[in-house]
């Protein structure tokens, strides 16, 4: 983080003969401050995860009442219970897991497909004129998802989608797509229009331009948006709880929250299930992290 070329700062050094190089001192102070903030952020970030592990490894499932900072007899038995679906809230755990995975993957694919098509039409084809039309998907967020769940429940029944995984996928796509379009719209400013025009002059149809120029050049943003949609679906609880009524279509998120219905549930099993449920999105996110950074630019390139 060189702030300036040393040559330009040298006159000010003469003013501070005792401190020597003030910018070096300041930089050292900056690094010290960064280290302190870093340690605080590390503890802040890891504490809830540590708490999950603490309870999941406990043999009795009542760590929260014993007040220890590490279980007396740590055991992986809770994870065995989850894997085998041995507790009745966790029956058919892998079937529920497959439901969650299906919802997340379908949401990801549909959001990327629908979002990239719409952002191409809005941003590249001069369809949208003015701010009201160009960003209209964002108006969706004026009615938050949780506010819409009751009418959504009735509407989905009219569509013949009650108790269907597709109803949850529809809800997730509905609320992930506006952000996806927004991000793609901003990122598309990096792709020069001359490329589209050159292809058009060569006789390429808009679809060819979309497939051969837009999609390949937008790859980083598409990965970012896909990850966002996947995590969005994995975060979502209310719609899965409301719209999926049968045991066959239950998801892991609903199964975990069910433990709160009981007064004396084995909380260690609950936490073990929560950890297993959290692993795929964290793994996918960390694997794709290098790619996703490019897609976070909400403001577009400005210079």
């Amino acid at each position, binding site marked *: 983080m060189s702030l300036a070329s040393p040559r330009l700062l040298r006159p000010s050094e003469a003013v501070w003969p005792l401190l020597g190089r003030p910018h070096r001192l300041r930089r050292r102070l900056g690094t010290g401050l960064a280290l302190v*903030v870093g340690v605080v952020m590390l503890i802040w970030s890891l504490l809830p995860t540590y708490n999950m592990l603490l309870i999941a490894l406990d043999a009795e499932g009542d760590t929260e009442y014993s007040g220890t900072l590490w279980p007396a007899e740590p055991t992986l038995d809770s994870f065995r219970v989850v894997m085998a679906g041995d507790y009745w809230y966790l029956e058919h755990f892998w079937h529920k897991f497959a439901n969650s995975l299906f919802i997340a993957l379908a949401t990801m694919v549909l959001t990327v497909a629908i979002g990239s098509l719409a952002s191409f039409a809005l941003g590249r084809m001069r*369809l949208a004129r003015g701010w009201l039309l160009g960003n209209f998907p964002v108006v969706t967020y004026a009615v938050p998802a949780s506010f819409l769940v009751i*009418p959504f429940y009735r509407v989905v029944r009219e569509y013949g989608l009650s108790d269907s995984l597709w109803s949850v996928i529809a809800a997730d796509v509905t609320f992930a797509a506006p952000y996806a379009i927004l991000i793609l719209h901003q990122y598309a400013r990096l792709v020069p229009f001359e490329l589209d025009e050159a292809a058009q002059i060569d006789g390429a149809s808009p679809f060819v331009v979309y497939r051969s120029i837009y999609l390949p050049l937008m790859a980083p943003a598409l990965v970012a948006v896909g990850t966002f949609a996947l995590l969005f679906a994995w975060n979502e609880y209310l719609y899965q709880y409301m719209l999926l009524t049968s045991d066959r279509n239950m998801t892991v998120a609903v199964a975990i929250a069910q433990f709160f219905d009981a007064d004396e549930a084995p909380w260690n099993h609950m936490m073990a299930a929560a950890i297993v449920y959290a692993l795929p999105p964290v793994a996918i996110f960390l694997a794709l992290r290098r790619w996703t950074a490019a897609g976070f630019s*909400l403001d577009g390139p400005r210079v």
Partner: protein
Amino acid sequence: MSSVPSAHPLSLNPGEYPPGRRLQRSELAWALAFLAPYLVVFAAFVVYPVGHGLWIARDPALYAELFADQRYLRTVVNTVLFVGLGVNLMMFAAVLLSGLFVRREWWVRALLAVYLTCWALPAVPAFVSFHWMLIGEQGLVNGLLRELFGVEGPIWFNDRWLALGCNIIAYVWKWMPFWTVVFVAGRMAIPQEIYEAAAVDGATGARRFLHVVFPILANLYLVCTLLATLWTVGDFNTTYLVSIGAPARSSEVLATLGFHYAFDAAQPALGIAATMSALPILVPVALVLMRRLQAGGVQL
């Protein structure tokens, strides 16, 4: 195209349309075809449910009933605090922390990976963990307070304001990494020359943040704050899973109250009315957001 005048009428910003050229008819058909899948989703799952909801909750008597209900008024106060404190704390901390995470040292990048797992961690596991961490006198937080400082922590969910505070902390924990990364990307887009010019003029450290970085990020900060406001008003998971509304439903927000009216009190119309009563505030926020998004591209 854009109603915002560009700073340099002759030199186009990257991604800006050349002036004067209009959409031709065959292109219009293509454009509508591209937009069609989203329009179908928008009509079927936004316009129709919203219209249906407004129609169910059309009776003015419902709103009279709401405003006479102490629980509703208390919930409005909670929601305003949850959103007002939560969003502003989160955004301000995120923009400060983005200054740490633009550093290129190895340990900063490792820390960023750990920090971002908070965002990647699904809401249900994360908030369930917060619930157990803060439950009663024997949760991990009070355990740590006792072991490290010899302090007996409060029973967090026995007090409305403490419970609300816990929800805010949990929400900030989950979503701050996301906004931090947005600000990191925003800072990365600031050209190095601006920093160098600022350093020559003597603006470093806090003064550089105040007079250089923040003015450049101002529009981004506003856009993010508006978007986060809309998302936070609709947040159901935090209150539902961290405090579970305790004590005695006094820490609820609009999203959970609507749910309880509809399913525990079997008054779906009242539940919809409770949530729809926020629309007169949310719709203008969304419109300002759309306006600012358009302005973002032509700054600097």
